[in-house]
């Protein structure tokens, strides 16, 4: 009940005006010390999928959450939407903690929308485009007189024009890019404040990818939408995001503006991710060996130390911090800061690490 009182446009303007110390806009959606744990099957221990995350999505901002699969980024996104319950910490929306009663969640879900990776899977094959887009409206308002106008408007805003031509199409009659546009239209129809997109272009062709990203960017510019985009694709972050948070094994290990993090990365993990991009222009590639470690067995000390190239090359040893890397947790990065942060002992020494 707590999450829902004011009318939408008012709150949006309000959020734009309010300022937090540091000059940035107030967060619309935040994670505060969020932890999500899953009980493993059989003899497997507890998986710490999200292990203490502070993250702010500010009004009118696109933030990219970057990491490898299994790092907990999807779980974090789902928790922010109330699809998972945090084990510890809390999600706040416009400053108020999210309430998990049915009614409050429903009200919240009118204002925060999800766009999933696989547009073919996220549309019911038995619903035509019209029904898929109108679904949110019907859930929240029932069948209304202006339903058709709203659906047409949402489809048009998502770039499906003329919208009437798509009303009676089934998902399998559309191309991948068109399906993703339908999913986005289904989110837009409720006039949300925040969109959480989980790998929105990962299953689309290269030529369509840019179109969908341009759409997200334009929605931000035209409608003032905030967006959290979960992705493993750093190029996507460069294309559309304002800020980026790099996640490794349940924690945000580096955060800052896109320009700072992607052009002058401070955490060795971010540096490695950037160096392996094909045609990235980086002279020396750091291909980390092995798979990301298991969230049921988070290593002690810095959670990245077992794969860290700085530690492996002896650089950390020379700097006299190798023991701290192995034994001391660099801690959780705070949210709401405008500076470029990295949870790394080596980066904390004040030197521009590596590159």
């Amino acid at each position, binding site marked *: 009940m707590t999450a829902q009182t004011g009318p939408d446009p008012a709150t949006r303007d309000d959020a734009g005006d309010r300022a937090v110390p540091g000059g940035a806009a107030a967060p619309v959606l935040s994670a505060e010390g969020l932890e999500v744990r899953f009980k493993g099957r059989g003899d497997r221990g507890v998986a710490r999928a999200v292990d203490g995350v502070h993250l702010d999505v500010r009004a009118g901002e696109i933030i990219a959450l970057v990491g490898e699969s299994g790092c907990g980024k999807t779980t974090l996104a789902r928790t922010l939407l109330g699809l998972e319950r945090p084990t510890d910490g809390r999600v706040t929306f416009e400053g108020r903690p999210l309430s998990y009663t049915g009614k409050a969640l429903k009200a919240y879900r009118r204002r925060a929308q999800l766009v999933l990776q696989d547009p073919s899977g996220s549309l019911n094959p038995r619903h035509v485009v019209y029904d898929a887009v109108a679904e949110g409206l019907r859930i929240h308002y029932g069948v209304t007189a202006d339903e058709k106008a709203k659906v047409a408007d949402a489809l048009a805003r998502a770039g499906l024009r003329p919208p009437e031509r798509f009303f009676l199409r089934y998902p399998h009659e559309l191309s991948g890019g068109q399906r993703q546009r339908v999913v986005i239209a289904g989110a837009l129809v409720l006039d949300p404040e925040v969109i959480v997109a989980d790998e929105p272009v990962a299953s689309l062709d290269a030529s*369509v990818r840019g179109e969908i990203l341009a759409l997200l960017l334009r929605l931000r510019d035209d409608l003032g939408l905030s967006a959290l985009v979960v992705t493993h694709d750093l190029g996507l972050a460069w294309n559309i995001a304002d800020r980026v948070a790099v996640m490794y094994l349940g924690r945000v290990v580096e955060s800052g503006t896109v320009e700072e993090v992607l052009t002058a990365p401070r955490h060795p993990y971010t540096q490695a991710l950037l160096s392996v991009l094909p045609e990235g222009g980086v002279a020396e590639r750091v291909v980390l*060996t092995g798979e990301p470690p298991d969230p049921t067995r988070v290593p002690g000390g810095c959670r990245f130390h077992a794969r860290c190239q700085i530690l492996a090359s002896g650089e950390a040893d020379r700097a006299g911090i190798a023991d701290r890397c192995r034994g001391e947790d660099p801690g959780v990065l705070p949210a709401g800061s405008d500076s470029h942060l990295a949870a790394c002992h080596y980066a904390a020494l004040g030197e521009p690490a590596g590159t």
Partner: protein
Amino acid sequence: MSTGGNDAAQRTNFLAVEDLSVTYRTGSGDVPAVRGVDLAVAPGTKLGVAGESGCGKSTIALALLRLLPSTARMSGRILLDGEDVLTMKWGRLRAVRWAGASIVFQGAMHSLNAVRRIGDQIAEPILLHEQRTPAEVRTRVSALLEQVGLPQQRAAAYPHELSGGQRQRVMIAMALACNPRLIIADEPTTALDVMIQAQILRLISGLVSDHGISMLMISHDLSVLADTCDRLAVMYAGRVVEEGAAHEVFSTPRHPYSEALSAAFPRIGDPASRRRPRGLPGDPPDPAALPAGCSFRPRCPAAQDRCAETDPALWRAGAERRAACVHVLSDEQAVELGVPPAPAAPSAAPPDRPANGADPAQPEEIR
């Protein structure tokens, strides 16, 4: 790979696809999937084939080993080490499928048998095609697993116990099992994370150069291909629309479609792509109803009136480069080929085109 001795290499290509066409017969008429494609892979080199889904690139991969369904009709020639795959006898084809060339498919989860240990699956082709004792086969399997960077104890694992990257490694081990001379990799890293993708690409490149294997790699990601391959062919609507040295096609594309593909994956740090994602409006054409003239025209940002009348062929677009676009022609060439000349208005000039791109006769692009 823009080295000299091109003519000599042409003659000794390990794989040469000549004027390959594949047409699927369906209930509602014939659907041309591949329309006259020429490709060549010299021994020990890597060719990348790029394009979006439905452009015919996977059809080519399957056609190379005659793995297409019976509704597909093929014409042209596929010369594998001088032998035409399309006219080969069944028994010879079987031998070629294992020892001559093997395929690494995308989606390793579906290509592996879920209820058999991976060691047995790797051993299967060896047992089928080579007279070996079980002990020898076991040694070979261990060696293969080691080559692809998996501990040999993993031979006892089932596919679901492995991660996506590990499964892709198993697929590569299976492809290597009978020492093929050509590997066809169909989207080998799609759906993998950047780090795992880098691991797999590094593994494939290393194996290919260590063993002197030729490779044909198929992907929709031009940056991956440019990074891994020597030469690159970009396909659109069943045809090759641009071909050339991989880095050149990626960095200075001549065909507007290649340019769009190249721009789709931004270079981080490049201010031109910051907050400016680029894509192509529209969808690839229905292969059963291709537009007249250039089939890319409806989506082309640089289309001109003459594009509706001319079906461009792969014209020379620089040293060892070819592109199927009227923009690569000079006015004199256009006249010679019977192509209508470019409109005089400068506004019709294609945007973002490299300045030196106007005259294909100038070999200034090569180093």
